[in-house]
């Protein structure tokens, strides 16, 4: 127990997370004080001081949240590297499943990523408004996110200190591959309908974006994210691995596949999160989503779709057959 703490990647990761948390904790304390005493109708020196402190908190939070994006990528890299130490694991899939904390940690990290993108929107609106119009909302979200990040830090330590390198774990083929005839796809879809739905949902995302159908845009983005996950693991992934039986969301993060998984998962999750949160923040704050944000969503999701499709086309042109 705890042998993985000898890994330099794990040490660097936990140290970085702890360091950022200390910074975040200081920002949190100041933020709570500012949130409770904030009064825009007041023109006292105290309010002026609070406004200066709020700028400090925003700067610290901005830095930390940017770092969190990189740390999530580093977490994936660290977990993947541990597969050489954990018995039975061939990639990050087995390592994540090596104890009961792994799945919760991964879900929590994605939830935090979702919250962070929403915070960036609120921050952008707030700074644009010049008079800190959305400061209260932004601070409330920051305090809410702090609780999540606290839970994340606990799970980070609980997860890495409870990985038993001697206890064999299942490899990705056992977790995602052999399902004995059971259909792993949602809604009873088969491969053809899954792919049709994947491309149709992308079109729907673009159309709802062009026509400013905000609620439908959120729904189509969520559904696209959900279907794209299955499409990547159960169809496009087989073309990345060039093996019809290899179905895994983690192996594509490895060197053998040119780390393409980072580009794919990053573009999918960040693209969807920016899209969904752009719509949520525009409903919440009754503001128009910026054209630049919309362009980023189309660019990221378009890149994801292009990359997935290119793998299939290249395979077909090289070999003359589909997998």
């Amino acid at each position, binding site marked *: 127990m705890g042998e993985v703490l000898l890994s330099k990647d794990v040490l660097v990761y936990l140290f970085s997370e702890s360091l950022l948390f200390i910074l975040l904790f200081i920002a949190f304390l100041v933020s709570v004080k500012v949130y409770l005493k904030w009064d825009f109708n007041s023109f006292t020196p105290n309010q002026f001081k609070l406004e200066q402190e709020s700028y400090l908190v925003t700067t610290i939070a901005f830095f930390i949240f940017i770092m969190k994006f990189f740390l999530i990528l580093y977490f994936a890299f660290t977990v993947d590297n541990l597969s050489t130490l954990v018995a039975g694991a061939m990639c990050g899939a087995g390592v994540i499943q090596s104890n009961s904390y792994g799945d919760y940690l991964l879900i929590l990290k994605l939830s935090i990523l979702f919250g962070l993108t929403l915070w960036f929107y609120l921050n952008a609106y707030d700074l644009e408004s010049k008079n800190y119009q959305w400061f209260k909302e932004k601070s409330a979200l920051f305090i809410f996110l702090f609780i999540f990040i606290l839970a994340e830090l606990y799970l980070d330590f609980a997860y890495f200190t409870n990985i038993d390198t001697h206890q064999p774990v299942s490899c990705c083929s056992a977790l995602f591959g052999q399902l*004995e*005839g*059971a*259909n792993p796809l949602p*809604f*009873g*879809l*088969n491969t053809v*309908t899954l792919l*049709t*739905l994947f491309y*149709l*949902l992308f*079109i*729907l995302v673009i*159309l*709802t974006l*062009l*026509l400013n*159908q905000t609620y*439908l845009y959120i729904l189509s983005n969520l*559904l696209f994210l959900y279907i794209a996950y299955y499409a990547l693991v159960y169809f496009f992934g087989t073309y990345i691995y060039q093996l019809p039986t290899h179905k895994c969301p983690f192996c594509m993060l490895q060197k053998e596949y040119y780390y393409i998984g980072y580009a794919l998962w990053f573009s999918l999750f960040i693209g969807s999160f920016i899209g969904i949160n752009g719509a949520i923040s525009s409903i919440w704050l009754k503001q128009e989503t910026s054209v630049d944000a919309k362009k980023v969503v189309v660019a990221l999701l378009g890149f994801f779709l292009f990359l997935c499709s290119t793998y299939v086309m290249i395979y077909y042109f090289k070999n003359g057959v589909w997998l």
Partner: protein
Amino acid sequence: MKKILPLLLIITFMAIVAMIVVSMAKESQPITIVKGNMAMKPIDIKLNATNDTHCKMIIKSIDNSAEVVSPDGRTWFFDDVGCMVLWLEGKKFKDDAKLWVHTIDSKKWIDAKKAYYGVTDHTAMHYGFGAREKESNRTIGLDEMRLRMLRGENLTNPKIRKKLLGE
């Protein structure tokens, strides 16, 4: 273009909803349990479409497959009598359940308590206990088979395998 886009949006949306609804309606999941078997009789297993309740594997062969019927008519299916024994342990209705096995000699469903079991047969999970209707000097009863399963004394144990098969 502005007039076409809303129309395109509606068509795309409708197509997506239709695809999901049709797929869900056509979805065929493997059978895991059948309810309402109050007569507690064996039920025909749909091969390649029924899941073993214990090991979760699809049942591909009728030979040595087994069924457990609880007094309230619920029926569970197994691809190996060893799976049935392991699953049944600790169940409240263990003593009142009706157990069925499909024999390899007479090719029919018989009461598992009246069946005899070989110890070196080829079975789905390689436990080795093949069900038979007729007794021989190389078969054992259900109680002994159950004990051997719970002790791990079956062909999946390398020591037992070497002792019985010399491999």
